[in-house]
């Protein structure tokens, strides 16, 4: 079945069983391997993507559910030559170590900053509570989101 949706801002159509996991279609047919599988049961958040702007675990979303909706993956946030403020802050502040959880954190943090441009520490921790990281102890991730929020505000005109 051909499923039509918007992927990272561009229209997409993929012929795949609607009962496939969104995660498998992204990583397989679409070759977007930035979205990672850490547990396959919605606990670790490594496969977080945005569905109409809201973070979801792509391992728990059936592909058919994205018909007519907008999906954003880490590949849609920026590329190595044009890092988003969040991506840049994660590199600078030590928010990424092994990097396998990083795409999920970035996607969740992106949704947070879209909703709350100047989040407090509690906002940040609550927004990222669905993403597990085993390397950082999370402190540098909190710092990175804070730094990105500051940078985004200063980049805005006026």
């Amino acid at each position, binding site marked *: 079945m051909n499923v039509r949706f918007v992927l990272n801002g561009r229209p997409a159509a993929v012929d795949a069983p609607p009962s496939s996991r969104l995660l498998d279609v992204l990583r397989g047919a679409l070759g977007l391997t930035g979205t990672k599988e850490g547990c396959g*049961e919605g606990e670790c958040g490594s496969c977080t993507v945005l569905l109409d702007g809201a973070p979801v675990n792509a391992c728990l979303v059936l592909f058919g559910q994205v018909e007519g909706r907008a999906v954003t993956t880490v590949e849609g946030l920026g590329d190595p030559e044009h890092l988003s403020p969040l991506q840049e802050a994660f590199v600078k502040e*030590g928010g990424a170590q*092994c990097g396998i959880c990083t795409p999920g954190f970035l996607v969740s943090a992106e949704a947070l900053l879209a909703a709350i441009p100047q989040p407090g520490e509690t906002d940040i921790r609550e927004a990222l509570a669905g993403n*597990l990281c*085993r390397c950082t102890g999370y402190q540098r991730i*909190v710092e990175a989101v804070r730094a990105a929020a500051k940078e985004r505000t200063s980049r805005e005109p006026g």
Partner: protein
Amino acid sequence: MALVGRSVPRPDGPAKVTGRARYVDDVAVPGTLVGATLRSTVARGRLRGIAKDPSFDWTGLTVVTAENVPANVVALIEEDQPVLAADDVRHAGEPLALVAGEDGLRVQRALQHLRADIEPLPPVLTVADALSRSAQIYGSDNVFRTVHIAKGDAAAAIAACPVQLSGTYTTPHQEHVYLEPQGVLAHWDEDGGAHVLSSCQCPYYIHKGIKRTFGLTDERVDVTQAVTGGGFGGKEEYPTILALHALLLAKASGRPVKMIYDRKEDIEATTKRHPSSVSITSGCDRDGTLRAASIRIVLDGGAYVTLSPVVLSRGALHAAGAYRWEHVAIEAQAVATNTPPNGAFRGFGAPQTIWAMERHMDRIARTLRLDPLLLREKNLLRVGDTTPTGQFLKESVGVARCVEEAKKASRWEERRASPAPAASGMFRLPPPGAVTARKARGVGASVYLHGAGFTGSGELAHRARIAVDLLADPQTGRARFRVRGGSTDIGQGTETVFRQIAAEALWVSMDRVEFATPSTAAVPDSGPTVASRTVMIVGGVLEAAARSLFAQIEGERQQKGGSFEDAARRLLAAHGTVTVEREYEPPPGLAWDDATYRGDAYPVYGWGCAIAEVEVDLDTFETSVLGLWSAHDVGRAIHPTNCKGQIEGGLLQAIGWALQENLVMREGRVVNARLTDYVIPTILDAPRFTTLLVEDPFSRGPGGGAKGLGEIPMDGGAPAVAAAVEHATGIVCDDLPLLPETLFALSKETRR
């Protein structure tokens, strides 16, 4: 230049934050089959045979059993572990057979149609059963190894002390939960050469294992590290067996084979932290001056030897803690049980024995009514002291400063003075009918050390080698540099700090130094990425190699003139790529005797002090860690942000071990092999960290004195948390984890 000491943006960062970094499961090779493993469901038995269900369609599926394995051993310290079980089954989850096919789902179905006929035998599931020899499962006594360390006459000295105290302290399994499960991609070339792409810490371990099992020479085996999503020791030895499995399937099918564990299989089958029981009897003066300790350690090694002898050794060498003792006797044993083999995990035995010693220090402080940190400060090791192995500490003992700085940052005295319950040594339940939630706060501390580098003569035996190349940039023709070694970046930042060290020694910018992907076909063996040795030991060899290459170019410049760039270009024109390879040279005067356990156990030690503040809910007995102040003597911080990231990550791993991680085994099988019920800390469980770096340089460390730091934070987190819980509630818990139900049960004993 001053690159060393600066928190430069990590060069592997952009690929990781954009999803471009290629982990093994992100690599697609056309024609690759999916491989999977049939595992034992019983803990011990005799394998009579494996039969294929004739009613199942086996077309296009490859099946491999023990009889297809050329030399059926996993080459580690001992060769007791088979690649696939042949006759004896020694633990639940043991691999029995392998299946590969085009379609993952069909491969999973096929596993259900392989019938393993196992005659069950009574398993040895506990350390007590192993030591009482309820069945003989390893050697004559079920003991993998015994270690003795003696300094003076502990028994006599304890007997002469006015204060004698004893306690037993235990710790459970811990699962690594690297967020990327284990995975490998393997194929054979037309000339019979083996190729492996692995999520791993130690490509040369896998290299050795493949050579042994398939009877191949060095150059016929190529093991490359893929970008690796965390390791923590879990990807030290285990990836070897996984690579062997994939190569067996690739050989039998003639196709590349990928094997990626799902989380459940990863938790069920791969190695864990060794459970431990440590009993300490100490003697001290009434003012808290420590005199003597007698320590007995038992580790549960699981079903095969793997790395247990060295984990045991490191555990024993850290058991006396960061303190001065005139007399010490340590007896340590690693025993065999029919449970999945335990192996390397950050800290490598030290977190277990430090847990025991730190809890014991709190016992002494409690008994003598002393401030726990004052008691520790009174007895800290200093330059000029000797350790239990007789090692004379001649430099870089920054522990007093660590305690001082952590105390100051946390306002220890103030926080310590505030809560009431601990002062009375009593736990009080909320009054009946109380509607408001009752919470109690407290602070606790731990002080610890960690030997950096391999134990004893290990570094000498391994002789780490690393190379630095001068080569021409293919585009510009300009001189570039390349670092080549087997040391891997598993997230801790090897690439970043190696490029910093090399660039600084070569007086060039970091972007002109590349870090070669560790691949056994292209890099010398700098030893495994373990034991807090990568920066200190391998980084030191790297610094020497880079300096030597710099001297070569500088020599050319002085001889024939021009700039550094001109000289480099002349060398390139004359010789092509110029390579300097260096080998580890042990510091002069370092001596170690494996037979007697006397001498310099480690080249140097890292030191730390952690102070935790907790809040315990007196209705639910849940513990939250609110703040964690720590100071660690790292010698020299080459990349301060990375150092802090390592420390905070290690401390949180220890907090998880202390409060919530609880691996449950029944009949030798893991029953909670999911992240739903094996729960690691989330960002909401993590405290706010205040992380201080103390620099008391090691004269032989790179970058002006760096010491190992990867493991030490794992040593200090758990005892600090338990001490804080005690301070908050009066509840003394000597057994990890401090689950709410455990604390609740203990509260009834504590109440008077």
